[in-house]
C-alpha cells in the first residue's frame, strides 16, 4: 500500500452526505457532508460541542441519523449504507471499527481475551458455532492459533506483549488506550474511527501513538479521527475537516485548514467583523501564513 499524500487519485472509502441529527429541538448536526479517502488519515476537528462525536456515533450505528446518507465503499467494490445496518453489522459486514473517548475495554477480561473477542466472527465460523469446536476439529484449532498469532502481532505493535494475561482493567491509562486501538485492529477493519486517541496522554505517549497510527495507515487501514491535540492532527493527518455548531466550516489539507480564517475564528472566538479583518490581513500578507 502506498502512502502518498495526493488526495485526488484516491478512491473514497467513506462518504457522508447531508447528514443531520436532531435531538428534540437541538440540531446537533446540520447538513454535514464530507469524504474520507482510502489509505489516508482524515481528522475531524472542531471546538467543544461542535458535534464531532455525534458524527462518529452516526457512522458507527450508535445513533440513527435524522437525515442523510453514510456510504461505505469496501475494497471489494461493495457499497453499504451504514445507517441501515444493525449495530453489530457495522463491524461484521462493513468493516468499520471504533474506539471511544472514555475507554471501553472489557476490564474483567484479560488483555489477550479482549483481542480475541474482536475476532469473534472468524472464530465462531471456524468452530462451527461452538459445536464443532467442542469436538476439537483441526479447522478450529488452526483458526484459534491464527487468532492468537494476530493478537500477538497487535500486542507487539501496541507494546503490551508482557501484559497479555493481565486483566485489561489493571493496565495504565496509556496502555489501555493502545489496547483499545489494538483491539479495534483485531477486527480487521477497513476504516478505523478513533475518538480522541491522544486525550490524556503525555507528550512521549503521544509520539508513540502517532507512530502507531501511521503504521496502521501504512498497512492499508484508513483512519478517521477526532482530536483536540493539534500537534497530533497537524502531524499525522492527510486531510482535515472542521466542524462548528454542527456545520462544516473548512475542509482540506492540514496547512489549508490551519490558515483558514474561519477556523481561526472558531477556535479563538473572534467577532465576525474581525474575521474579515484577518482575511484582509492575510490577503495583504501582513500576517504570515501558518502563524496561528
Amino acid at each position, binding site marked *: 500500500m502506498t502512502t502518498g499524500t495526493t488526495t485526488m487519485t484516491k478512491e473514497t472509502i467513506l462518504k457522508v452526505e447531508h447528514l443531520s441529527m436532531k435531538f428534540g429541538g437541538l440540531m446537533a448536526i446540520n447538513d454535514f457532508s464530507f469524504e474520507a479517502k482510502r489509505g489516508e488519515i482524515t481528522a475531524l476537528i472542531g471546538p467543544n460541542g461542535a458535534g464531532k462525536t455525534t458524527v462518529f456515533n452516526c457512522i458507527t450505528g450508535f445513533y440513527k441519523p435524522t437525515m442523510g446518507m453514510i456510504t461505505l465503499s469496501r475494497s471489494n467494490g461493495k457499497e453499504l449504507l451504514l445507517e441501515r445496518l444493525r449495530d*453489530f453489522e457495522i463491524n*461484521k459486514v462493513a468493516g468499520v471499527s471504533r474506539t471511544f473517548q472514555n475507554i471501553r475495554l472489557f476490564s474483567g477480561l484479560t488483555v489477550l481475551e479482549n483481542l480475541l473477542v474482536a475476532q469473534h*466472527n472468524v472464530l465462531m465460523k471456524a468452530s462451527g458455532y461452538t459445536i464443532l*469446536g467442542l469436538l476439537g476439529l483441526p479447522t478450529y484449532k488452526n483458526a484459534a492459533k491464527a487468532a492468537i498469532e494476530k493478537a500477538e502481532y497487535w500486542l507487539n505493535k501496541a507494546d503490551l506483549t508482557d501484559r497479555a494475561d493481565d486483566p485489561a482493567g489493571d493496565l495504565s491509562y496509556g496502555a489501555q488506550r493502545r489496547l483499545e486501538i489494538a483491539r479495534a485492529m483485531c477486527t480487521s477493519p477497513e476504516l478505523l474511527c478513533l475518538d480522541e486517541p491522544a486525550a490524556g496522554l503525555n507528550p512521549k505517549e503521544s509520539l508513540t501513538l502517532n507512530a502507531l497510527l501511521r503504521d496502521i495507515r501504512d498497512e492499508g487501514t484508513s483512519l478517521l479521527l477526532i482530536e483536540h491535540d493539534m500537534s497530533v492532527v497537524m502531524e499525522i493527518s492527510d486531510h482535515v475537516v472542521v466542524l462548528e455548531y454542527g456545520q462544516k466550516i473548512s475542509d482540506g489539507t492540514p496547512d489549508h485548514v490551519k490558515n483558514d480564517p474561519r477556523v481561526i475564528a472558531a477556535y479563538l472566538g473572534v467577532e465576525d467583523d474581525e474575521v474579515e479583518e484577518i482575511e484582509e490581513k492575510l490577503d495583504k500578507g501582513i500576517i504570515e501564513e501558518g502563524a496561528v
Partner: protein
Amino acid sequence: MVRPLKDRIRGKYMEYFIQQLINGLTLGSIYGLVAIGYTMVYGIIGMINFAHGDIFMLGGFAALIIFLILTSFFAGIPVALLLLLMLLVGMLMTGLWNWTIERVAYRPLRGSFRLAPLITAIGMSIALSNFIQVTQGPRNKPIPPLVTDTYHFGDITISLKQILIVVITSILLFAFWYIVNKTPLGRAQRATEQDRKMAALLGVDVDKTISITFIMGAALAAVAGAMYLMYYGVASFNDGFIPGVKAFTAAVLGGIGSLPGAVLGGLLIGLIESLWSAYFSIAYKDVATFAILAIVLIFKPTGILGRPEVEKV
C-alpha cells in the same frame, strides 16, 4: 416430626449427619443447576428472570411427557436410554421454550426502564404455570420409580438416583464451565456481560448471544427439572414457584452474576434445607431458606463470591 429421635437414642449421630449431608448435596445439585440460569441471565442483561423457576417446572413436564411417550410406544426400552432421551429431548424442548419467551416477551423491552422486564418476567411466570395447570391438569403427576437401586454403607444409604444426580450435575457443570471460559461463544458472552454496546461494535451479534444464554440456562433447568421429577416422583404445575425461588436464593447467596457462586449457593441451600429438616422442623424448612435470603441481602448483598461493582475512575 421427630424423625431423628430413634437415631439419637441409638447414638448414631455421625451416620445420621452424613446421611443428611448426602441428601442435601443431591438437592443442592438441583438448586445449583437452576441457579446458574438465574445468575447467567442476570449477568448478561442485568435482569432477574423470575420465569426461570417455571422453565424448571416445564423441564420436569417435558421429561414426564417424553417418558410417557417412550414407555407407551417402545415398551421394552432400556432405562439408561430412556433417561438419556428424557434429558436430551427435554433440554431441547425447554431451550426452545425459553428462546421463544426471550424473543417475544423480553427482547422488545430491552432498553426500556428497569422494572419493565422484571414485571414481564413475573407475568410470564404466572402465565407458564397457569398454562400447565390448564393443559396438564392441577393434580400431581406421578412417575413410576425408574432407578431403584440403593447401596448401603453401614447405616448410610445412598440411592443410585442420588449418585446419578450428582454425577450428571458435575458433568454439566464442567461442560458449562468449559463453554463459558474456553470457547469464542463464552468469550462473547462475557464481553456482552461487561459492555453490550462495545461487544456489538466488535462484530458480536449481541441479540443472538443473549438468546443462546437463555437457551443454555433453560437446558440446565430442564435437566434439573427432570432430576427433580425422578427424585420426588411427581410433577406439579406449581413446582416452579418454591424450588424456583429457592434456586434464586441460592444465586443471591453465592453472589448473583457469579457462576461458581450459583453452584456453591445451590449446594449450601440444599444442605441447609436438609439439615434444618433433620434437626429442627421439616415444616419450617422453607422459612429457614428464605430467612437466609433476607440475611444475605441485609449483611452481604453481593453474596459469597460476588464482586462488588466498583469502577476504577
